[in-house]
């Protein structure tokens, strides 16, 4: 008897993604939806999409979705979660959103130990606006605003936001993963699931930073973009559990 072993998860709508070929966002969307399904929390989950490429996440997730202004995901999620403490609230944010314009909201939500889950997608650039330098752009990486590559003296160095968040007292679980290979995608799914479990147990702030390919703005093929994550990006942003106070 043949059975389906892989199909679209329950909490993704039947809508084709608008993302570019090889984009990591839709993989991450799927992993979040799979985790929600497996944890049986779809009926009580509220998602907060960002400004940026993933703003249209509300068209893909089949759970309640409330859009935040650029960078304010953690503040909006805080307002929802404090009002409805028994619901599961996640914000979904890109690196420009969370590590530049929304740094303050994120650090203070973590420090307060807000019982929310943050999905932090790091693709080293501002994708939707056309590939400008993000706070996470690597040194020497080309972007539309770092001609000749990001220069430490001129542009500053990439920011280690997850490590910064880890030193706040309210952060419980922070892990950095990637979606550039089957193995890493499976690890990312585990990390997202764990982050939701931290929230379900009421332990406090959880965040998964996910290194994600942006073939369009990196100006390379999807396969090369996945390779770049191993060879370059993960050298600056190592894949690891950054903080785990769950046990």
């Amino acid at each position, binding site marked *: 008897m043949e059975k389906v072993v*892989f199909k679209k998860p329950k909490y993704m709508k039947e809508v084709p993604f608008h993302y*570019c*070929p090889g*984009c990591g966002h839709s993989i991450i969307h799927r992993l979040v939806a799979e985790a929600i399904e497996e944890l049986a929390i779809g009926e009580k989950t509220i998602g907060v999409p960002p400004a940026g490429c993933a703003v249209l996440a509300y068209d893909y997730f089949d759970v309640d979705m409330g859009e935040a202004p650029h960078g304010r995901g953690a503040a909006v999620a805080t307002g929802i979660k404090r009002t409805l403490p028994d619901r599961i609230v996640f914000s979904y944010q890109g690196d420009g959103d969370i590590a530049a314009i929304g740094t303050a909201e994120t650090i203070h939500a973590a420090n307060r130990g807000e019982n929310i889950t943050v999905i932090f997608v790091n693709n080293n650039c501002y994708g939707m606006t056309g590939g400008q330098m993000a706070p996470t752009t690597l040194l020497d990486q080309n972007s539309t605003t770092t001609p000749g590559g990001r220069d430490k003296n001129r542009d500053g160095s990439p920011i280690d936001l997850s490590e910064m968040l880890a030193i706040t007292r309210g952060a419980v679980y922070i892990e950095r993963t990637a979606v550039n290979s089957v193995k890493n995608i499976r690890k990312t799914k585990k990390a997202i699931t764990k982050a939701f479990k931290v929230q379900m147990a009421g332990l406090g702030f959880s965040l998964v930073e996910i290194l994600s390919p942006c073939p369009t703005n990196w100006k390379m*093929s*999807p*396969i090369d973009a996945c390779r770049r994550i191993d060879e370059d990006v993960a050298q600056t942003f190592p894949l690891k559990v950054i903080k785990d106070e769950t046990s």
Partner: protein
Amino acid sequence: MTIKTKKGRIAIDSKLCKGCYLCVSVCPDKLIAISGELNEKGYYPAEFTETNTGEDRKCTGCAMCAVICPDIAIEVYRG
């Protein structure tokens, strides 16, 4: 002694596929190729080639292609 092999099958939705090649790159048995015909979106979609390789390489339903597919364009069946 009989060697028990998993038998699988995949279905690629050519309308959703954007031809990113990621599934092609991860299939352990090289059973996925890029089609020569454009889809509605203007991409050359991936297609499952088990039936026309002329070899006896078989899909095991390992789902690696589906796991890495950014567009949830692949369904995997086993059994």
